[in-house]
């Protein structure tokens, strides 16, 4: 009893986040650098569009060095072939993919080659502190189906500029700027010479610690809105609305993303009558088991896949 006298808990110093935000003056000269324009829907895409697949998948990544690693990957399963009729044709295919990655703080090289003759290559190079060069190409043995693209990114203090050049006379430029610590606005312009199409788009992104809301409008007729709420450290819920005012196509989807200690589970349901789930479970150190399921009630198309990923 005596020990309790005189023991007063010290007054809690308020944590920095609890300071009233209205009393803080926004320092407009010190805004954070915004997310790159093409990643503006990043959180929603990560939660709502996992890499669903059908069939069996096996990936093995072996690091030879701190910077260099090789990867082997086998895939067996039905692939959808686009056909004129409303029924999609599924053809069972199997392929093996060999890849090599080189990772350096300044340079990243990434190459993949498949048994059906396709080659994928990506380069990302930091030319200076603020200028990044990215190149990406996909070569196939079919004529006129290969394409390549080069990007120049300049990162300013609170803005980013990107120039894009692609084969087939594709030019693009985008600019995104932080307007307040939470809001960033951007726009892009592109011109496709081969199809004689050009377009302009605008995007906005508002994010706080707990939620991210983005909106994007493009002159190709696409309006996309998304909202991701981080309900707790392990759970986040995402929803997405896409409307094409040229073709009057509306899609809304809603999904969840659970990141638990042993697994990551993503599920989503769509307004097209499609539900999907994707589970990555960690069986052991470096060993991941993947399950993917997609049910389309309208078209009665059911796709289930399983796989194993070995290596970091």
């Amino acid at each position, binding site marked *: 009893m005596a020990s309790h006298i005189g023991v007063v808990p010290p007054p809690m110093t308020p944590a920095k986040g609890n300071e009233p935000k209205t009393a803080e003056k926004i320092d407009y000269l010190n805004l954070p650098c915004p997310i790159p324009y093409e990643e503006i829907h990043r959180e929603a895409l990560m939660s709502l569009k996992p890499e669903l697949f059908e069939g069996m998948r096996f990936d093995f990544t072996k690091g030879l060095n701190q910077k260099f690693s090789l990867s082997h990957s086998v895939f067996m399963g039905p692939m959808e072939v686009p056909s004129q009729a409303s029924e999609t044709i599924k053809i069972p295919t199997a392929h093996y993919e060999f890849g090599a990655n080189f990772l350096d703080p300044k340079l990243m090289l990434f190459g993949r080659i498949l048994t059906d003759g396709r080659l994928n290559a990506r380069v990302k190079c930091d030319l200076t502190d603020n200028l990044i060069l990215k190149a990406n190409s996909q070569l196939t043995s079919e004529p006129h189906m290969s394409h390549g693209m080069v990007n120049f990114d300049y990162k300013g203090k609170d803005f980013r500029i990107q120039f894009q050049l692609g084969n087939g006379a594709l030019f693009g430029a985008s600019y995104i700027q932080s307007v307040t610590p939470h809001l960033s606005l951007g726009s892009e312009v592109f011109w496709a010479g081969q199809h004689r199409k050009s377009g302009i788009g605008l995007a906005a992104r508002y994010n706080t610690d707990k939620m991210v809301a983005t909106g994007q409008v493009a002159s190709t007729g696409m309006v996309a809105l998304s909202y991701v709420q981080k309900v707790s450290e392990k759970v986040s819920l995402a929803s997405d609305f896409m409307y094409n005012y040229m073709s009057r196509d509306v899609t809304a989807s809603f999904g969840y993303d*659970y990141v*638990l*200690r*042993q697994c990551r*589970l993503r*599920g989503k349901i769509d307004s097209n009558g499609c*539900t999907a*789930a994707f*589970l990555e479970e960690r069986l052991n150190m470096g060993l991941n088991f993947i*399950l993917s399921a997609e049910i389309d009630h309208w078209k009665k198309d059911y796709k289930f896949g399983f796989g194993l990923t070995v290596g970091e």
Partner: protein
Amino acid sequence: MASQSRKGGKNRSGQEGVLARVTNTISQSSIVQQGKLVASDAAFVTKKLLKSTGKAAWIAGTTFLILVVPLIIEMDREQQMNELEMQQASLLGTPPVAPQK
């Protein structure tokens, strides 16, 4: 004989005539006709309802199986692991770690 049978027959037909006439009137009355229509409508609607309920139950069931069942399984495993950790922490005498939110 024949006349008797004919008479009997006539009588019988007369009696049957009465029975037949009664049943005919009953079966051709408007109430019974309406009742038959209602019953066939009801059977049609019930069949459709059963079919659509069956369809809805199938869609709901498979969607629940894909979206919710893995979640329940994983959350259960997470909880088991947490309990195991708390048990081990208390066994080894280490101060219990506050559960991560």
